[in-house]
């Protein structure tokens, strides 16, 4: 157990404070007044969640507080069918319905986050301290959101100014000297309101392999700042501005000698005008701009000479006009038109590419009868660098009776080729291979040829003349909701995503140094399918149990065919003769677990005026790489073993405005230093919250 000096001091102060405020306490019930939950991400309008025909999920502020989450990955990892996986670039991205993090759109207050360094968007970047709720839509949603919304959409909705003047402070200390502190200053009266939020998160990092020279996670400190202002010109028109800044500095060490620093700077501004013309017609104008920059450098610490540096600078500007028309209580139309301008400047790019993409979308939401709700919509994205995309979607919900309802949806999703896949121009300085983006491959290849570095061309230059197609999918979801009573309900959702034109690399030429030139091309057909179950049960007023399970099959269709044809071989031992594999020996895509489970138990302790909870997550075995050389993940490969993590916490409110949270994450101290670098082991923490 790590209890350093400051931790102890903190502990004492807390005890003292607790003691002095130990009288006249009121405790919330575990059953707060049940308000109908509003969901915006599925329709871009305020919509009651209970009648939505799509597989959606809300993570409330209460859920986040009870789990004592600090960063976004903490809370998402506890949700059914969601898991964060480590990327080789160091980011922690979300996997949804078996699709990689690059295929899930992450929004903050409805606006996309940028900064996908190698495709992955690192969600550890986001603090949970300012989150009001998180909305999750599963299944392709490009009909509203365009590119990247293939697996689904996660919309993080942050707190808005609330009435009155208030101050909130909190401080948390945990193992590895990790500290998290936030301050909120909020003011709202009549027409004008503002809210300032500041968070500092720092850690000494941790080391899963003390024998190696490098730490698993190097020390870092980051700051999140958010200022929101609201002004109501009248009852009908509103002005809103949100400014956000994120800064992180982290030690960056490549070896015992090569040391440096990496930094991230992110700005965003979101301006919104709302105008309600009448009961039926409203319009919204939004202007979003964001910049994401990283800078890394390495210095040879023995002689002080500069070794290497790289940078990444991405910008996105997006104006959008949205109009909502309510025909009546049950029929509503929403339409939008917008323009995305994106640019990237980074190391290993021979050009500074720009993406320009105007788009338009329309969605119709209607209650055909009292029991049937239907949503149909489509979006058209035009683009200057790849084929334009038309993304339709349709969804229906049918309520059989008060207890049972059925829902089904089919949608098209796509992910535009990213800047790297189009414009990368990179030669590995130690091994000597080259990777070229599709759009620069011909010119870069010609240059390599003129320098005499090309031995043979494997792909004729004319094959590189067309454009790379966006990766796309048809996603189908069919679900059943069952609500016996407020105390017991569950839902099941079956999903299938058929993905085409997945982008992969291939050899386009041999180099005279014996290495190859790689480029990107559309190749794979992949599917992910399975189902998830979510349930909630309150056997006692004081006790709530929730649980979830996901079954997943994620496979490459060509790989399946190759196994079926008997084209795949393996060795039992790396140096033993090969043997032929059978169809059932194919496991599927890398980094996908067949089974994922979560089970949470919440218990109220009236005598203690506190809540306790125990939360368990389980992930079955998965493969990270092909260990027997046949390029496929088969049952003879080395797998990462199944694991479970148990978290425990007690949250106690005292003197109304104070609360204290104490807990242990990963109680049994699970680690897998070789394969899982984002699980640091047991974490003990304490947190004090003050609302003034």
């Amino acid at each position, binding site marked *: 157990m790590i209890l350093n000096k400051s931790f102890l001091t903190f502990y004492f102060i807390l005890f003292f404070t607790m003691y002095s405020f130990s009288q006249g306490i009121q405790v919330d019930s575990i059953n707060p007044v049940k308000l109908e939950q509003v969901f915006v991400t599925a329709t871009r309008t305020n919509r009651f969640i209970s009648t939505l025909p799509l597989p959606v999920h809300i993570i409330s502020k209460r859920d986040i507080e009870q789990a004592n989450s600090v960063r976004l990955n903490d809370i998402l990892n506890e949700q059914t069918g969601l898991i964060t996986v480590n990327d080789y670039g160091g980011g922690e991205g979300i996997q949804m319905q078996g699709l990689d993090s690059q295929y899930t759109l992450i929004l903050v207050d409805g606006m996309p986050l940028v900064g996908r360094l190698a495709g992955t968007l690192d969600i550890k970047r986001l603090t949970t301290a300012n989150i009001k709720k998180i909305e999750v839509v599963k299944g392709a949603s490009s009909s509203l959101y365009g590119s990247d919304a293939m697996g689904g959409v996660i919309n993080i909705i942050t707190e808005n100014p609330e009435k009155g003047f208030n101050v909130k402070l909190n401080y948390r200390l945990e193992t590895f000297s990790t500290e998290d502190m936030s301050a909120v200053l909020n003011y709202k009266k009549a027409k004008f309101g503002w809210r300032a939020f500041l968070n500092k998160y720092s850690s000494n990092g941790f080391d899963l392999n003390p024998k190696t020279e490098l730490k698993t996670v190097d020390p870092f400190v980051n700051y999140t700042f958010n200022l929101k202002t609201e002004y109501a010109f009248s009852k009908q028109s509103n002005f809103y501005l949100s400014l956000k800044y994120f800064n992180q500095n982290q030690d960056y060490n490549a070896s015992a000698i090569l040391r440096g620093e990496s930094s991230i700077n992110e700005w965003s501004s979101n301006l919104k005008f709302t105008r309600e013309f009448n009961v039926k017609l409203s319009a919204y104008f939004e202007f979003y701009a964001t910049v994401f920059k990283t800078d890394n450098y390495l210095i040879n610490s023995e002689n002080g000479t500069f070794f290497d540096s790289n940078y990444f600078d991405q910008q996105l500007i997006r104006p959008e006009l949205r109009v909502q028309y309510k025909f009546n209580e049950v029929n509503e139309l929403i339409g939008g038109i917008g323009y995305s301008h994106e640019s990237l400047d980074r190391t290993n790019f021979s050009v500074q590419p720009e993406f320009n993409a105007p788009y338009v979308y329309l969605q119709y939401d209607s209650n055909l009868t009292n029991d049937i709700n239907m949503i149909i919509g489509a979006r058209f994205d035009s683009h200057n660098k790849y084929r334009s995309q038309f993304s339709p979607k349709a969804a229906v919900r049918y309520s059989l009776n008060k207890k049972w309802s059925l829902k089904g949806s089919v949608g098209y999703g796509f992910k535009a080729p990213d800047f790297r896949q189009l414009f990368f121009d990179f030669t590995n300085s130690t091994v000597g291979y080259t990777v070229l983006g599709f759009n620069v491959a011909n010119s870069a290849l010609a240059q390599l040829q003129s320098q005499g570095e090309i031995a043979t061309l494997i792909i004729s230059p004319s094959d590189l003349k067309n454009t790379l197609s966006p990766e796309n999918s048809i996603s189908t979801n069919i679900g059943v909701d069952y609500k016996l009573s407020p105390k017991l309900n569950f839902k099941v959702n079956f999903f299938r995503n058929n993905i085409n034109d997945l982008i992969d690399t291939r050899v386009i030429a041999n180099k005279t140094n014996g290495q190859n030139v790689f480029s990107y091309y559309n190749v794979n057909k992949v599917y992910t399918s399975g189902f998830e179950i979510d349930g909630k049960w309150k056997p006692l007023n004081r006790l709530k149990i929730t649980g979830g399970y996901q079954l997943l099959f994620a496979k490459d269709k060509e790989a399946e065919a190759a196994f079926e044809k008997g084209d795949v071989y393996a060795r039992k031992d*790396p140096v033993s003769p090969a043997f032929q594999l059978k169809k059932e020996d194919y496991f599927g895509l890398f980094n996908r677990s067949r089974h994922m489970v979560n089970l949470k138990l919440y218990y109220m302790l009236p005598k203690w005026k506190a809540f306790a909870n125990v939360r368990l997550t389980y992930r079955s075995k998965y493969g990270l790489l092909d260990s027997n050389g046949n390029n496929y993940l088969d049952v003879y490969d080395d797998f990462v073993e199944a694991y479970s993590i148990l978290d425990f916490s007690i949250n106690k409110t005292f003197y109304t405005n104070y609360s204290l949270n104490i807990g242990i994450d990963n109680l049994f101290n699970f680690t897998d230093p070789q394969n899982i670098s984002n699980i640091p082991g047991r974490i003990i923490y304490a947190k004090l919250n003050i609302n003034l």
Partner: protein
Amino acid sequence: MKTMKTIQFIILIALFTGFSSCSNDDDEPLVAVESQNITNLQAQQAGGQGQPISGAFAKFDFLTGQTTESDSDWDIAFRGTSIIVNGGTSLGTIDEPERTGEGAAYMASGTMASVMEVTQDLFVQDSDTGYAITTGSENGWYSYSGAPTYLITPIPGKILVFKTRDGRYAKVEILSYYENAPSEPNAFTDTSRVYTFNYVYQPNFGITTF
């Protein structure tokens, strides 16, 4: 598989004795086909990693089952991950030997036991645009893992079928690229460019089965 080979061997011995006991002197007796294992064939190179590659190829002669320094009496040769045949023309890299024979090669999918017959149409010779055994990760006989292990692994199910310099046939399965064929190779500590392979040589002219 071992029993397969043993049976194969016994049949051949039987055939051999059968033929040799035959009094007809016009028939050349058939020589037995044997499965052989070669360990630690050194195929070092200079350069690489962005620099021009040089260094002598390690030449191998199926007839003797040994490496050779001969300029003409070799069938296949190794340097780093490159494998050349004694047939066709040189790609023109530094220190690459001239081809003097009628050697050729192709890659078949299968196991040593399942690749039992030579397909003549598939044979390709080395040329000034590329080798018959194509090079590069996933493009020839091996895959390169890249970071963090940087391992060269022979792709299971790749059988290299060769026509020797004088028109006989052999099949090869490469097992390891590291010295002493460690079962858990480590690219940082094990010496690479050291081949371990199994081969079957058909010493009889005109016989296209193994």
